[in-house]
């Protein structure tokens, strides 16, 4: 029998037993809807968590050990020698040192053109860290990130998440406007007072005006810090006579995520510590999301299995009631293999239809849930616009899994149908 003939007969059989077909399609639909909804929810929440905790799987932040035998083992202070040794570890693609600026720096007023986003008269102390250009190069798109020795504006990189925090938390607290939607802050200059601190007695003897220019946004920069070129921090430390205390942190880029555990262990053996604050938070959230999604998908899989069982039971009953019809098919030329294929095709059609309807239902439920959630939840930083993600593979899975479950459920009924004895049934 040709595939076209098979589908034609399967559709006709389903038409003859509309009620059974509808019940079976509904079972497949429930399985598909739950599977798609739970998978999309897990993926959507996972995306939201990654926005909130954008830890890169290949980065390891090495910091000086609090208590270490570094002096004996050659570790301890993060100087250039330590950076070279860390860079030489197997599995390290690159190593970027960071150095916290120990000279106070304050922003006395708003960036040009953003007066409405700044409370009048406010001065903000900005923690600054010097970073190797390689750390943020991927986010600068070719814009320069070098120390301006001529007194020009200092290129600065901020955390991409800071804008979200400003809009959702800082601006409401300051009672000022949020940033205009879609604004590109790259290139904006901010006046700064170098050497000035808002903390009493922390202002340096020499204070002078300068400018920061926003060179880019990067998730590799700490949330509440401004990153400037490492050479700028070194220069300011020299200007203000700050002693060399070594780097505050070295960020290692592993060649592969699998290399990270080995690098962490090696750094610890060298007497350094590993800052796992953000990574640990991201991993904890990731684990929670994974476990929750896994549980929900397991539940959906159970529902699909139950749908398959329901279809199996319903088709078995249907086959018993259609024995004469099957015998007639045999009389007009259907081989047992054809009969088996017809029953499986019926199940496949039911599964595909149920899967398609269930997937559409999941899309609808997700849209509704998003609407309700966004109406009820306060506007907090990184609040997702949607809690669901529907990549094409989930939609395909929403159709393929119920179809496969229905076909698996139909294996036994198909075997029963193929064993119908036409001569005895028609007698």
């Amino acid at each position, binding site marked *: *029998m040709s595939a076209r003939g098979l589908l034609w007969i399967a559709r*006709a059989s389903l038409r003859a*037993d509309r009620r059974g077909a509808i019940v079976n399609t509904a079972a497949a639909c429930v399985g598909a809807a739950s599977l798609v909804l739970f998978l999309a929810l897990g993926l959507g929440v996972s995306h939201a968590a990654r926005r909130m905790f954008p830890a890169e799987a290949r980065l390891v932040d090495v910091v000086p050990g609090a208590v270490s035998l570094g002096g004996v083992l050659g570790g301890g202070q993060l100087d250039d020698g330590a950076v070279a040794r860390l860079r030489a570890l197997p599995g390290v693609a690159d190593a970027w040192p960071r150095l916290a600026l120990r000279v106070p720096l304050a922003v006395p007023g708003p960036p040009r053109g953003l007066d409405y986003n700044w409370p009048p008269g406010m001065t903000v102390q900005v923690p600054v860290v010097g970073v190797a250009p390689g750390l943020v190069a991927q986010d600068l798109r070719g814009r320069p990130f070098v120390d301006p020795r001529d007194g020009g504006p200092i290129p600065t990189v901020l955390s991409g998440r800071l804008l979200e925090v400003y809009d959702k938390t800082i601006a409401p607290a300051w009672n000022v406007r949020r940033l205009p939607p879609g604004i590109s802050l790259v290139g904006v200059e901010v006046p700064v007072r170098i050497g000035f601190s808002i903390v009493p007695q922390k202002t340096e003897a020499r204070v002078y005006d300068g400018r920061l220019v926003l060179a880019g946004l990067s998730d590799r920069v700490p949330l509440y810090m401004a990153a400037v070129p490492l050479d700028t921090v070194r220069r300011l430390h020299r200007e203000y006579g700050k002693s060399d205390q070594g780097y505050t942190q070295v960020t290692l880029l592993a060649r592969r995520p699998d290399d990270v555990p080995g690098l962490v262990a090696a750094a610890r053996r060298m007497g350094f510590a590993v800052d796992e604050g953000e990574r640990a938070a991201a991993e904890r959230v990731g684990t929670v999301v994974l476990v929750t999604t896994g549980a929900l998908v397991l539940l959906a899989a159970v529902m699909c299995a139950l749908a398959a069982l329901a279809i199996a039971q319903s088709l078995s009953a249907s086959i018993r009631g259609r024995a004469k019809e099957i015998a007639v098919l*045999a*009389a007009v030329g259907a081989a047992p*293999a054809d009969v088996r294929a017809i029953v499986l095709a019926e199940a496949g059609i039911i599964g595909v239809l149920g899967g398609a309807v269930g997937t559409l239902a999941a899309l609808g439920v997700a849209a509704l849930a998003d609407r309700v959630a966004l109406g009820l939840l306060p506007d907090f930083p990184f609040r997702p616009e949607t809690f669901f993600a529907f990549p094409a593979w989930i939609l395909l899975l929403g159709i393929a899994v119920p179809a496969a479950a229905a076909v698996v459920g139909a294996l036994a009924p198909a075997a029963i149908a193929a064993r119908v004895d036409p*001569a005895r049934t028609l*007698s």
Partner: protein
Amino acid sequence: MIRLAGVTKTFRDGEQALPILRGVDLEVAPGELVAIVGPSGSGKSTLLYIAGALDTDYGGEVTIADVPLAGLSPTRRAALRNRAVGFVFQSFNLLQGLSALENVMLPGMLRRDGTDRADVRERAADALDRVGLAAKAKAPPARLSGGERQRVAIARAIFTRPRVILADEPTGNLDAVTGEGIISLFGELARDGLTVLVVTHEERVSRAAARVLHLHDGRLSS
């Protein structure tokens, strides 16, 4: 052509063996309409299903349309039924989910030769036209009279242009006038060169047959 040689069939009721056919020999030539008569339970239908390659649990030799059935796989037997045999049943056995035309199309849709659906539909329409039901092509079986349903069943049987027509009490559920029409249709088919074997217990059918054979005590006699 149908040829049965020494065909035996035994049913089992628990430990007890009930022989129903005890060495049946039969040969029906192309263009011949043969009726087998006998009382209920005499094995007429069983004989018909053996002759039509539907029943495989028997002894003896059977040849249909020059094909010996011995050793044929289920798939080849099915293909032979599809290509060379047309069945007509007492209770019509039309599929309720299909229209009259679609019921006639059924053997065509089961074919493996990739016949175009439009071609199958056209040939099915021709078959319906031949039995005088072209106007009822779209009607479901439930809206047809008994005679019309049997005509649809005959159209389904002749759709594949078979060499053998096997009819099991084809007028058993029809009134006298309608039954006569069906019987004359079988006569036409035989005159067209088909081998027609009808099992019945009705005299009016046997009157139209070229030969009438009696099945009694598991054996055929003239």
